């Protein structure tokens, strides 16, 4: 889902950069209030893990491949899409400058899709469903929906850029990412399950519960 340079006209890239700057303002404000020193290593390790897993493209139907993105993972671990914005700005900047994966001019659009939309949709879906279907199914559906919706946002950006036709763009991105979303769902559930098993203290949902109990 990494948009390269050249797909989006520069004036539109500028708009996405403005969104990125506003997002980074809110993300740093979140960090100043919530990111304690104990969870810094987790954030750094998640960034490296996301960088690594993005190299592991798995085959899906139609001679296509896809990899985990991780926006939902970061947003649920910290219960904040702001955390995903920080992590993805770092990862996507490195990928754009050093590895030619995703354009530097498209950085704003790529953070918008993968972190703001991806993290936001994943977290909201999780929060909305967890009390009805349980934590892990809610994570899986959140991760799948995050992949699907962010792909459609990416398609819309490409349509606005005049690169994809409306129907073909939405259909093609939608169908392919419906499959890629399965990869995202399975891996997101596994990583959060492992963290819950070995380092439950790092997951924001365990901290929230504790502070609520104190309040009650």
């Amino acid at each position, binding site marked *: 889902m990494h948009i390269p340079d050249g797909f989006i006209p520069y004036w539109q890239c500028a708009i996405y950069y403005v969104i990125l700057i506003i997002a980074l303002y809110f993300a740093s404000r979140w960090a100043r209030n919530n990111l*304690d*020193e104990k969870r810094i290593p987790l954030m750094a390790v998640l960034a490296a893990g996301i960088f690594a897993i993005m*190299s*592991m493209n798995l085959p899906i139907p139609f001679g296509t491949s896809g990899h985990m993105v991780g926006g939902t993972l970061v947003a649920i671990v910290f219960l904040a899409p702001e955390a995903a914005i920080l992590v993805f700005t770092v990862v996507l900047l490195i990928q754009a400058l050093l590895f030619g994966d995703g354009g530097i001019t498209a950085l704003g659009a790529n953070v918008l899709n993968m972190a703001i939309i991806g993290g936001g949709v994943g977290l909201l879906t999780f929060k909305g469903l967890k009390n009805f279907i349980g934590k892990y199914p809610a994570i899986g559906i959140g991760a799948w929906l995050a992949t699907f919706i962010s792909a459609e946002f*990416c398609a819309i950006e490409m349509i606005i850029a005049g690169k994809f036709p409306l129907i073909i763009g939405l259909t093609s991105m939608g169908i392919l990412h419906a499959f890629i979303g399965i990869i995202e769902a399975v891996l997101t559930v596994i990583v959060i399950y492992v963290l819950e098993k070995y380092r439950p203290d790092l997951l924001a949902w365990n901290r929230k519960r504790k502070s609520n109990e104190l309040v009650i």
Partner: protein
Amino acid sequence: MEKGNKYLIIMGIVLCIVIACLSPFLASADPDGLEKSAEDSALSEDAAVSVVESPFPDYTLGDSKLGEIVALIIGIVITITLGFGVAYIVKKHD
């Protein structure tokens, strides 16, 4: 740093390096979702350009599998370092 976080970092880096070693052999070379949609949209392959010249284009270093592994490991080290740096700058100040 507390012991649990040292363990987290070590396990995290080990897992990333395992992925880096497997990826060049296992990862699918098929176009990804966006590339395939660009094909479906009959978008010319020349549409994608590079504004900056990256030192490791497409995660390669030379044209060997070993080079790909090295490029990925360099990326992992830079990402975790910058991740620490950014998180440390924006962290909660008591």
